[in-house]
């Protein structure tokens, strides 16, 4: 079992969307998944609530630990009970985000194309990563970035410009996949559905989420 953090100190980059898609994607593969929120009221909690209210199966177990120390203690206590633990963390620097980074086995950073996002990366996330890596000492956290809410054209100037800027930071490994800004992904996540469960089926969206799941879990 592994603990993954989906995190970025910047809000609005699609962390909850990605958390829902990874969590449900794994549940549909037959895995027992725990989704952890570092905020009491987050979009991913509401999404899973909607799924459960609609009676869709399989689902994931959902918990919220806004307190950092509680998040650490509780998640480590439940580690053997689940195949995967996905923590939806951040939106800002917080003790919960930091504790999540301290216990995680890997972190995924969704980054949306745009200058504000890159400013936040340089001013907030990269210094935070450096601090956490120093605290983790001989057990560095593998941290991967990917473009989320990307422009539909893979080689659009915004996509390429953002990728180049991310590559300048050795603290993050940029993986070669984009999740495009698509209505189907946003709508599925809001409803607490995997994009593959949506009708009509959006094959391109399904493929992108599939590639993301493969990158994480093989």
């Amino acid at each position, binding site marked *: 079992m592994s603990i993954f953090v989906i995190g970025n100190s910047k809000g609005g980059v699609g962390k909850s969307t990605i958390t829902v898609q990874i969590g449900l994607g794994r549940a549909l593969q037959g895995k027992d998944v725990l989704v952890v929120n570092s905020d009491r009221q987050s979009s991913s909690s509401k999404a899973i609530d909607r799924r459960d209210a609609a009676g869709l199966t399989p689902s994931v177990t959902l918990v919220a630990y806004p307190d950092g120390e509680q998040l650490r203690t509780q998640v480590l206590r439940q580690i053997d009970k689940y195949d995967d633990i996905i923590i939806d963390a951040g939106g800002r620097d917080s003790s919960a985000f930091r504790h999540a980074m301290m216990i995680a086995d890997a972190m995924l950073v969704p980054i949306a194309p745009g200058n504000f996002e890159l400013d936040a990366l340089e001013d907030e996330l990269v210094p935070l990563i450096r601090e956490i890596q120093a605290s983790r000492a001989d057990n560095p956290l*593998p941290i991967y970035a990917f473009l989320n809410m990307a422009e539909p054209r893979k080689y659009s100037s915004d996509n390429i410009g953002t990728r180049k800027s991310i590559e300048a930071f050795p603290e993050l490994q940029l993986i070669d996949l984009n999740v495009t800004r698509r209505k189907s992904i946003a709508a599925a996540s809001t409803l607490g559905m995997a994009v593959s469960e949506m009708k009509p089926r959006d094959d391109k969206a399904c493929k992108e989420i599939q590639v993301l799941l493969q990158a994480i879990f093989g």
Partner: protein
Amino acid sequence: MAIIQRAPKPASVDPAATQAAAKAAATAPDSKSKKNMRGKREMFSVGFEPDLLAEFDAARSKLGLSRPALIKIAVRRLLDAGV
């Protein structure tokens, strides 16, 4: 084959990781616990005669210790030995 690698060891197996995490989280903007990692302590002042203080300072400078550090070591040893 997964592209995403995992950390060399799970956080749960490292006994030092808990304290490291508490320290890392203590500097978060929302951290309630700006608590002293060394625990609670009470302060009081003690007057030393100049000669005793000079002797004490000479001893601690040889050891490279602060005044409070040497006093605490001395008190601990005294209590352990039985007053």
